[in-house]
């Protein structure tokens, strides 16, 4: 069927395909970041450099506020650590998804692109994660992220407010597209997702708890709910393979 392309090329193409919606969603968010970075006093080059070297959303927004306030370097390190700590969990999960013999430089390449969305499409892909797939997703997504930042920083508020508002849900739409299909296949995932939604809502609005920053909140909720789910519904040998995210449908 796919005889004229090598497996790596196929995987890379699949990666680019999955990366396109991510890049489109990123364009909107990074555009907003670019606008805000310039407002905080950074140059267009600096704003773009942050996006290229960081590839985080919450972390970057928090970062420019530290820069604007001329915060301590240690504070910057602490803020980045807490907000981005969830990537450590994702990276640990990915370590179980790749070939154990994969060389370090390829692992570092995959690590560079651990974001919520890239992680989502990588971990739900059936079978072992091919580095070529990761390369495809990461290159495409990061292009969108960097381009959006540049455009936002360079051209300011060129997009109508309504359009920016509409693009604001793009990322969440993607999250939903990643979570819902496996929730239909595995009831335990559905329960875990529902618990996460409840816990995150409580932590956002409850007295005292609401003062916890959004990055810390995500970590607390993730660890808390995943531990509960792991105790209540341990995965057995037959449920170990993640439910197929129905990627196959798109190729038919």
């Amino acid at each position, binding site marked *: 069927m796919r005889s004229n392309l090598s497996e790596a090329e196929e995987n890379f193409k699949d990666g680019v395909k999955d990366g396109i919606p991510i890049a489109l969603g990123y364009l909107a968010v990074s555009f907003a970041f670019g606008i805000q970075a310039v407002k905080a006093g950074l140059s267009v080059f600096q704003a773009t450099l942050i996006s290229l070297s960081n590839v985080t959303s919450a972390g970057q927004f928090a970062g420019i506020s530290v820069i604007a306030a001329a915060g301590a370097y240690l504070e910057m390190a602490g803020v980045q650590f807490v907000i981005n700590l969830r990537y450590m969990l994702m990276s640990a999960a990915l370590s*179980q998804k790749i070939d154990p013999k994969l060389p370090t430089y390829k692992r570092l390449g995959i690590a560079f692109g651990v974001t919520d969305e890239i992680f989502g499409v990588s971990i739900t892909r059936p079978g072992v994660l091919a580095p070529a797939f990761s390369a495809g997703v990461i290159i495409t997504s990061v292009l969108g992220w960097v381009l959006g930042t540049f455009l936002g920083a360079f051209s300011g508020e060129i997009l109508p407010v309504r359009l920016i508002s509409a693009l604001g849900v793009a990322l969440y739409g993607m999250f*939903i597209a990643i979570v819902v299909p496996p929730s*239909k296949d595995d009831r335990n995932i559905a329960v875990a997702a529902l618990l996460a939604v409840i816990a995150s809502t409580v932590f956002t609005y409850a007295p005292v708890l609401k003062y916890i920053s959004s990055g810390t909140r995500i970590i607390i*909720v993730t660890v808390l709910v995943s531990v509960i789910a792991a105790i209540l519904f341990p995965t057995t040998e037959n449920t170990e393979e993640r439910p197929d995210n129905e990627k196959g449908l798109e190729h038919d």
Partner: protein
Amino acid sequence: MTDNTYIYILIMALVTFLIRALPLTLIRQEIKSPFVKSFLYYVPYVTLSAMTVPAIFTATGNIYSAAGGFVTALVLAFFRRSLLTVASGACVMVFIIELIL
């Protein structure tokens, strides 16, 4: 903003990269513990769910358009539409609702 902006950027990039790189480079074997395996199995779905709700409801111009986008995404995802379809469907719904309201 002077030169030290670049020091800030360097710190940001370094801390973030280390967080991402350490587990992927240090964990080289299959994790055997059933508990840790189960934990890691649920992490992605739990994280993404926690990030979506309630944040999505304040991501647009008003809560009605956000709710419309949220429901649209849920329905499209339930019928296993692709990432791009679900994401753009939600955006279109937000856009339409905000045109009306």
